[in-house]
């Protein structure tokens, strides 16, 4: 046992001394002058578009949040008078109707996001792990499972809206007519049930993405780990718990963050399911802000709410990345192995040059 650890050390040392390789990589063959501008030229289109469609509008949005921007100023928004932090103080005054409604919408969105992300992750991971081994029909099943992800949002969600109809929907037919679980047909798209309806649709639509990512992550787990575990007598359940799930941690870290951001910002699903005015129980924040801006024509307040939402997402994402990178000491070694790989390929490149 001691000999194995000892023999492993030189390998680690080579990993540590790989930095000269990276330095050598910076020394470039001739044609250097032309190359200096090239990366910037290659980035230019992407940069310009990101500026035009994302960054400049975001800055304008922030500016607008300090203005009293109502329908009278839509023609030229720069003419709207400044009103300092009024839009913000109105948005966070939780005793007044506007603030209270925003807080309610925020809490609904939080609950919805936690449940939806959790369920999507759980179902996606379970399905991917179940389909890790080859069995008859696996390819077909995999294709079927990706259908909800592939379907356009509006086509899928409008079908769910039909299924949730009060008089002619499938859900009431099954629950009331066939199973007799409810005394009378329930309303699904208005009232408290709408939260459940939204959650079901969101999970149905979202879990295949988790499935896809976890499935890709599983392919990177070395087969030898399982073989070694099997030799040691570990059963399938133990292999899943001891090898599969821990190996998926880096993948899960990104996956959960992406699912969180997408779900929290989701507009399309509630918009198609409920129309412009979502029921109170399913009043997601995007819809709420849309409502505040475009229906009541108060764009200043809408912008202030959007900025608050962005700040919240920034804080959560930052905290998440900070905590998850700290609680993962393995991250450093993964980085190291990656840089080793990179420097190795560059060295091979140089030998090829010679």
């Amino acid at each position, binding site marked *: 046992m001691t000999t194995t650890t000892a023999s492993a050390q030189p390998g680690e040392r080579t990993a540590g001394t790989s930095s000269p390789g990276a330095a050598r990589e910076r020394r470039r063959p001739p044609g250097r002058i032309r190359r200096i501008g090239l990366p910037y030229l290659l980035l230019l289109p992407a940069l310009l*578009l990101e500026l035009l469609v994302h960054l400049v509008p975001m800055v304008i949005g922030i500016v607008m949040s300090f203005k009293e921007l109502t329908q009278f100023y839509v023609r030229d928004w720069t003419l709207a008078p400044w009103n300092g932090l009024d839009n913000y103080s109105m948005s966070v005054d939780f005793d007044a109707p506007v603030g209270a409604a925003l807080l309610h919408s925020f809490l609904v969105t939080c609950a919805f996001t936690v449940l939806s992300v959790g369920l999507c992750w759980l179902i996606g991971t379970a399905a991917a792990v179940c389909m890790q*081994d080859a069995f008859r029909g696996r390819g077909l099943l995999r294709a079927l*499972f990706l*259908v*909800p992800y592939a379907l356009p949002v509006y086509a899928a969600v409008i079908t769910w809206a039909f299924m949730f109809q009060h008089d002619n929907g499938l859900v009431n037919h099954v629950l009331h007519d066939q199973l007799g679980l409810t005394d009378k047909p329930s309303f699904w798209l208005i009232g408290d049930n709408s939260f459940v309806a939204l959650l079901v649709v969101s999970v149905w639509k979202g879990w295949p993405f988790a499935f896809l990512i976890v499935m890709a*992550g599983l392919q990177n787990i070395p087969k030898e780990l399982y073989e070694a575990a099997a030799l040691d007598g570990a059963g399938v359940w133990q292999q899943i718990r001891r090898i599969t799930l821990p190996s998926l941690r880096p993948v899960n870290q990104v996956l959960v963050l992406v699912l969180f951001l997408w779900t929290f910002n989701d507009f399309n699903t509630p918009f198609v399911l409920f129309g412009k005015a979502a029921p109170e129980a399913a009043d997601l924040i995007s819809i709420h802000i849309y409502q505040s801006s475009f229906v009541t024509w108060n764009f200043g307040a809408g912008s202030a709410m959007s900025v608050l*939402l962005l700040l919240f997402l920034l804080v959560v994402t930052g905290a998440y990345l900070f905590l998850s990178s700290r609680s993962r000491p393995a991250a450093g070694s993964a980085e190291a192995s990656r840089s080793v790989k990179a420097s190795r390929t560059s060295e091979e*490149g140089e030998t090829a040059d010679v």
Partner: protein
Amino acid sequence: MSRSPMAAPRSFLWTRRVFLTLLTGFVLLPVYVMVSSSLKPLEDVSSRFHWLPSNLTVRPYIDIWSTVPLAKYFLNSLIVAGAATVCSVVIAVFAAYAVSRYEFRGKRVFSVTVLSTQMFPGILFLLPLFLIYVNIGNTTGIALFGSRGGLILTYLTFSLPFSIWMLIGYFDSVPRDLDEAALVDGCGPLRALFRVVVPAAIPGIVAVAVYAFMTAWGEVLFASVMTNDATRTLAVGLQGYSTQNDVYWNQIMAASLVVSVPVVAGFLLLQRYLVAGLTAGAVK
């Protein structure tokens, strides 16, 4: 990739069987509703739901084209999503190549900025973007608002961050000696990119293209604000089947099916590339 050949215990096999069966049912339920309801006459979809259609008809598939100008919306969606995909992929290839193969000042800032745009709520820049497009139109005469061009521009930036991010990972996995060798042979950097790196990264590029197309084909929010009668896409056009008096559910289902077929078919054909692309690029 797959676990050891050791026989799995019955408990695992049964759990798997039950779970996968339930999941298949959940996934296919709306698809079944879509298909079966699209073959029913209006009276049948307006009254109590029935699992099996009693009067089969293909009438809804004929009516969908006249109730709303579906063909026009279809064409608009095809143009918008197609153009957005092509532009997005080309731009992402350039950007990812620069980040993957060159050291330059501001590289980290670029990567972080591009990725962080993923977290912006669309609602935050909807109105400013709308105002920018209107202003550009007023000052330069380039009609972006209400035009397909404006929508293409918007959609291609939606898929750009993820595409760049995934392609960086993918290009990193293409051995450098390949394009270094091409450079030594006298190729310019761009020829090395298109002759060597791009062909080696086809699965990643296909994956990115599929993603970009699906993003543009399914977007609702910007489509509902930024289009007019002439440029309306399917995402908005499908709402035309519900009128004040009647909701033509059978036609909605038929139209949903028709507009889904191109994307779902394309996706299922190319999904193995998507998995391969994700494995090499994003998930590493």
